[in-house]
């Protein structure tokens, strides 16, 4: 058991160093959310959006979840390159724990996403967001949980796929509809009933609702609790699946 922890720390530090060495990549992931924040957000300030918060409290949670979904689902690309250079294979021959190979990377993704989330929130505050600090921290926690789930699945898929060309279309075809159906830009309650019902099947919708409730300071109305449940369930399934595929990967 202790080996998993020190192995995870080792893999985590290696990938963190790699990420910090490549600052453009860090900044690049922020471009889309910041664009939405700065160029789209102000359009909504006068419009009644339903829900309990003001327009910033409604849109920023969506942007954070969007950041989480995008960044985490593409995390697997890094592994495809490492498969090509033979790094993965070299590591798999060592006694290093298979779970650590996955979790060290996921931890790095969490750190990266949290750093990016802090930047998004700071810019949002400058644009006019006012939200309670505990609510913002809860938002970060959900982004972290989302990252654990999606990054694990992304790495698992990447281990089975041969080339980046096969990878990106699969990810896009799943994340685009999922994002649109989770009410990221605007609450789903604004639309017709059938759309709202469809969105209840998308787990991310509950996360967006939970973060919106947290940003409005409403911790007890059940939305945050439900989001916790969904986030935990998602994480457990994703990590179990991801770890198993890492163990079996032998193509």
């Amino acid at each position: 058991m202790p080996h998993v922890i020190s192995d995870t720390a080792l893999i985590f530090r290696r990938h963190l160093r790699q990420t910090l060495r490549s600052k453009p990549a860090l900044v690049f992931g922020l471009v889309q959310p910041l664009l939405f924040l700065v160029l789209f957000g102000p359009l909504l300030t006068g419009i009644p959006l339903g829900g309990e918060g003001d327009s910033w409290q409604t849109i920023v949670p969506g942007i954070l979840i969007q950041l989480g979904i995008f960044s985490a689902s593409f995390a697997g690309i890094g592994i495809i390159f490492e498969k090509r250079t033979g790094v993965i294979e070299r590591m798999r021959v060592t006694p290093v724990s298979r779970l650590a190979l996955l979790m060290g990377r996921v931890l790095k993704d969490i750190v990266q996403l949290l750093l990016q989330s802090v930047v998004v929130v700071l810019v949002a505050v400058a644009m006019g967001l006012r939200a309670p600090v505990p609510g913002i921290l809860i938002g970060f926690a959900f982004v972290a949980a989302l990252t654990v789930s999606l990054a694990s699945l992304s790495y698992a898929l990447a281990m089975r796929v041969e080339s980046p060309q096969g990878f990106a279309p699969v990810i896009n075809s799943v994340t685009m509809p999922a994002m649109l159906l989770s009410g990221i830009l605007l609450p789903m309650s604004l639309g017709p009933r059938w759309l709202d019902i469809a969105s209840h099947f998308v787990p991310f919708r509950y996360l967006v609702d939970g973060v919106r409730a947290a940003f409005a300071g409403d911790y007890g109305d059940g939305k945050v609790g439900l989001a916790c449940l969904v986030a935990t369930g998602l994480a457990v399934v994703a990590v179990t699946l991801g770890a198993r595929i890492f163990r079996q990967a032998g193509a």
Partner: protein
Amino acid sequence: MPAITTSGLARTFRTKRGPVEAVRGIDLTVEAGEILGFLGPNGAGKTTTLRMLTTLLPPSGGTATVAGHDLAADPAGVRRRIGYVAQSGGVDPTVSVREELVTQGRLYRLGRDEAVARADELAHDLDLTDLLDRPCGALSGGQRRRLDIALGLVHRPGILFLDEPTTGLDPGGRADLWDLIRRLRAEHAMTVFLTTHYLDEADALADRLVIVDQGRVAAEGTAERLKTEYGGSPDATLQDTFIALTGRRTAPRDSAPLAV
């Protein structure tokens, strides 16, 4: 105790076109301290066998014992005792040579100070000391190969698996690598299992050869014995011997191997 024994080792891949039997039952024994050359035409199952023995691929059938550990029951035990140098070794081009060596040491559960010391020691043994602080991507082909081998030796394994180690090296680089392999065996009693396409390499380095074809052992023995038996005389070239062994069947193979 032999370093490696296998019995009926087999691997079938399930592909879209149906099952592919890459390895159909390999029996071999490698004695401790031996340099074994593993040869065969393309598609013979060399790399698949190598990947099974190094725990990268689970066998579909058969058993194997590597470094005293059962391959199926205790792959972690096998990993602790073997080193593996792949055909295209895996390093991150942006990372420094020292960092790769130290990380590799930590992956093998060496302590931090021990890993750092071992990195310096290996750099010295493999003539990489001047390169320790350069990024791995800046190394030449021969330097990269030496680094790949250093990475495989970090934990002082008893058995080293080499997959086509000199492919792509110039003649000087090849000769240096051959000397290194001989030194490893002489100084550390290391068992070396190497696959190669270069028959001169097999002839020069290996104590014994195992020739595989279509997933089975076609012949094994010392180079002399194989040349005599299949090439016609002890002075036959290994190339003629090899072709005689693997090239003479035009009809699809039946199940019996050619030799013991």
